[in-house]
């Protein structure tokens, strides 16, 4: 068939890349050396950013899109997909990332939001977007805006998985509620969720999100990965948890193994043995800035 009949940027090819990442680990990296370590360890993709979330948290100030040069250096280093973050609502940063040929854009609460009202109109882009969500309404609003992949927000940069668990459990519970609802209840439920009715109906029928659901935020050990996968996440994003640990190479390998064999406690036990210290972590109750509250 001829190229004239081909089309790019369809929902199928955008969601399709997320399907290909399922069962894998996407690792935050800040330079080509880390990207290489991630790929060597079996990462399915890397997230190129200038500072991992725990450093953004420590340094304060405005966190923005990464320098294109750094993203391009990482693209030149690895063969796996390269993702990058844009600020919430900052469609110009997203346009730049698309021009740079990144494979996925994360419209991320880890960066400082650029718009307090609106997220990016993601339908306008050929490159697919992943967005964070703390509950089902937020997830469906992002999908309504064109997101092709949803991740829990967690509380990035804390090394504490508690928020990610809360988000996954909330989304799962709200999906079960929709499944058990009478069709005439769905209108009010859609209103309460603040979510588009057609998407609410779809979840009520299928029992899962229309796009893959991954987990992000606070995953620091192989056991954390196993936990969130057993709670229904289909892949994991690991931010500070690898390169802020004592032995990043070993931690990266271990989290990849645990993600593939997440139901096999013997494998998770084996890869958890003698790993060295995980990142130090923080108790989320004492945080001054909750990143998960960014976005709505």
């Amino acid at each position, binding site marked *: 068939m001829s190229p004239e009949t081909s089309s790019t940027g369809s929902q199928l090819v955008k969601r399709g890349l997320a399907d290909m990442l*399922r069962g894998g680990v996407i690792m935050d990296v800040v330079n080509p050396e880390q990207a290489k370590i991630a790929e060597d360890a079996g990462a399915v993709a890397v997230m190129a950013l200038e500072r991992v979330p725990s450093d953004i948290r420590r340094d304060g100030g405005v966190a923005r899109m990464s320098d294109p040069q750094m993203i391009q250096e990482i693209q030149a280093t690895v*063969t796996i997909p390269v993702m990058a973050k844009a600020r919430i609502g900052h469609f110009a940063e997203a346009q730049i990332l698309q021009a740079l040929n990144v494979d996925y854009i994360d419209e991320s609460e880890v960066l400082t939001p650029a718009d307090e009202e609106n997220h990016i109109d993601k339908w306008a882009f050929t490159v*697919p977007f992943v967005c964070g969500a703390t509950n089902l309404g937020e997830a469906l609003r992002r999908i309504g805006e064109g997101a092709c992949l949803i991740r829990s927000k967690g509380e990035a940069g804390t090394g504490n998985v508690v928020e990610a668990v809360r988000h996954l459990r909330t989304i799962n519970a709200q999906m079960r509620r929709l499944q058990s609802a009478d069709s005439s209840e769905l209108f009010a439920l859609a209103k309460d969720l603040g979510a588009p009715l057609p998407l609410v109906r779809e979840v009520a029928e299928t029992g899962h999100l229309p796009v893959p659901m991954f987990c992000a935020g606070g995953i620091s050990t192989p056991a954390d990965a196993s936990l969130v996968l057993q709670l229904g996440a289909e892949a994991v994003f690991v931010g500070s948890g690898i390169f802020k640990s004592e032995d990043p190479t070993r931690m990266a390998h271990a989290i990849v193994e645990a993600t593939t*064999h997440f139901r096999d406690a013997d494998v998770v036990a084996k890869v958890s043995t003698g790993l060295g210290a995980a990142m130090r972590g923080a108790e989320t109750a004492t945080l001054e800035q909750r990143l998960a509250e960014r976005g709505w």
Partner: protein
Amino acid sequence: MRVGVLALQGDVREHTATLRALGAEPVAVRRAEHLEDLSGVILPGGESTAIAHLLATSGLREPLAKEIESGLPVFGTCAGLILLSRQVLDGRADQWSYAALDVAVRRNGYGRQVASFETTLDVEGLGEVPGVFIRAPKIESWGESVDVLATHDHGDGDFPVLVRQGSVWGCAFHPELTSDTRVHELFVTSLADR
């Protein structure tokens, strides 16, 4: 009929669902013992570097090689095609493959994600079939013993996108991502005929 789906990473669920729709019994393959009593095995889409890594660490790499050598039919889609190819271009320096299919593939030969595309393919014996290409590998050269069942012209001439060499099948696109089950049916039917 028990058909394995390599379940280390990637779009395992879609292949599983397609096999079930065709009346086959899908078997998730994560360890060597899962290869027992299979009529065939599918290597799914995903990231070929990650799957190759996990094949080695899970102890599956050699047992699967032996099965393929001894004639277990195998069908690789996208990343699975890369794993079966004789030669991988633009791969990692240490990228290995099973060399079961006499083709040379270029990783991401159709471009990065923004170039991923949908098209309609003309498959020998089936007619029009939807073709979903995601960071797809491109078959750039192939041996005489390789049957080309479908080609695609991306503006630079016809290149194979669905090939078969005896009991080894490979395609650059993702038939498992659409509701059209006919490409899988070709493979599954060939298992019944053996």
